[in-house]
């Protein structure tokens, strides 16, 4: 029973070992040219010290929103992949493939909408002007 879990323990040990080894290797072999920004605590790109009520580009919000949408939607592919063999066994592979392609097409339409409406254009002033014009 317990021996079933040996691969799991092994992979945990390997993961931890690899992480520690790489960190140590980077400390030993890596070049060190520190500056103020590099030495600051990592806060996903924000200034770690100072007021939190700062203005920042609305693009961050947009990208986060798009990420959440596509990230969460793609999770639906996992249960599909897991049950795919059952459907092949039942002779329904064509139907289940058609359904998942439909799903991906719908996601693709979302992406098309996003690109065409300028959701991914960070520097394009044309879209920004159009947006402000509304």
């Amino acid at each position: 029973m317990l021996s079933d879990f040996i691969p799991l323990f092994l992979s945990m040990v390997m993961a931890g070992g690899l992480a520690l080894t790489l960190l140590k290797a980077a400390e030993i072999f890596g070049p060190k040219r520190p500056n103020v920004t590099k030495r600051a605590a990592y806060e996903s790109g924000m200034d770690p010290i100072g007021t939190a009520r700062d203005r920042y580009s609305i693009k961050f919000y947009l990208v986060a929103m798009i990420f959440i949408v596509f990230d969460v939607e793609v999770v639906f592919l996992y249960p599909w992949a897991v049950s795919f063999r059952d459907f092949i066994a039942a002779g329904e592979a064509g139907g289940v493939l058609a359904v998942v392609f439909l799903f991906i097409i719908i996601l693709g339409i979302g992406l098309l909408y996003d690109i065409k409406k300028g959701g991914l254009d960070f520097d394009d002033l044309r879209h920004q002007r159009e947006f402000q014009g509304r």
Partner: protein
Amino acid sequence: MDLTGAYASLGSDLGNAFSLVLLSVVGLVMVVWDSLRNDHRAIPWIGVAASVLAISFELLRMPGPAEKIFYGLMWAGGYASFVNIIILAATAFTLAISVHYLDRIGHNYGEVYSLVVFASAGMIVLGSANSLITVFVGLETMSICLYILTGLVRTEEGSVESALKYFLLGAFSTGFFLYGIALLYAATGTLYLDEMPAALAGGAGSEVLLWGGVGLLFIGFLFKVSAAPFHMWTPDVYQGAPTTLTGYMSTASKASAFAALVLVVYHALPAERWMLVLAIVAAATMILGNVVAIAQSNVKRMLAYSSIAHAGYVLVGIAAGTTAGYSGALFYLLVYTLMNIGAFGVMAALEWDGHVGQKQDLDSLAGIGYRKPLLGVSMGFFMFSLTGFPPLGGFIGKYAVFAPAIDAGLTWLVIVGLLTSAASAYYYLRVLYVFWMKSPEEEAAPALDQLMASPLSMSTSVVLVVCAGLLLVLGIYPGVLESTTLFFSDSAAAVAAIR
């Protein structure tokens, strides 16, 4: 699990769910179209064409009995078709009257129309559900689209406020709803509505779980239809949303939520146990909606309270707990949809304050009937029908919900309903008094002149005339009510036979 033939049967059911499939596909087409040709003029009319096509399909399906599709997750045909027709008609009317209105307030985006179509697809799922999960999926699809539509005018403070209120309270009520589903599943062991009575008769599960589940489920439903203790969001949300979309929210979403409530109480829960609860809620809703509406000076707010009151009338029919009561409630929803879309359509055409009607009080519309006779006359139809005057549809609708309630022994409730609808005549007819018998004030003149300069759009006129005409037809031709009642009891018999 045996999956042989799963997709073949799903594929063959696609034809039964034609209007749902059509609306979903057309919604996607509208999104693609809007991506390629930003805010193109044709986008709303694609949606209108799809709705009309789907209505004609559902009219063909309606005479037959309702049958289960998608492995018993949904109903198609029969009363499901009737509910779908209400939803699709509201969609077509809303799309048609929104074009000119949204143009005028400067928010005519292509996304609005695809969101309305997606919301309608969700409403169709909700209104013809046979499983609590289907109810939930439909409810959420509908609600998320409506949250966005409410906050459409995001430069306007009141609009943002109403969208946020709607979203927070709606999400909260969804939580209640989901807990109710979980408890009901724990009590009965099934999510299919038509299997619940058998599970309850078998004595499975505990009483406490069942009553907790039913209570939480009802809270979720009563919130969505804005019945009395859960109505607080309605006035603010309806006042802040763009006017034509308020009309859509107050009719189509209510019709589908009520249809789902009818399906739940009809299929899943035995009648006598919740009758009194719904009757008390109905009485409170009618009294509160009508009494508070009297005090409103803002027209949109008044119509919001009036829609609370009408939710009470529909609940009277449902509280009767008979097939006649249920079909009366569905018929009332059809009439209510026509008159409310019409009333909000008139208000949208008359809106000139530049704040989506939030600051426009009734007196600013003085004497409008002579300047815009079409609007004045059609508003007369809608207001008399909302009050319940014969020979308009509102009268027959009230008869259809009150008569079964008397048969079911709820005479006290009907007395409350009649008294409150008599009180409602004050605030409905006051609109007509202001429209036709009051002379305009001096300071309102410039804005009004500006409004007069912009002609009434063709599509709005057509929708208003069609709504008023249908109200008259429903009022003087009793065959419509009779046939809906008959087909409902027919399908009830067919359902009983399937069981």
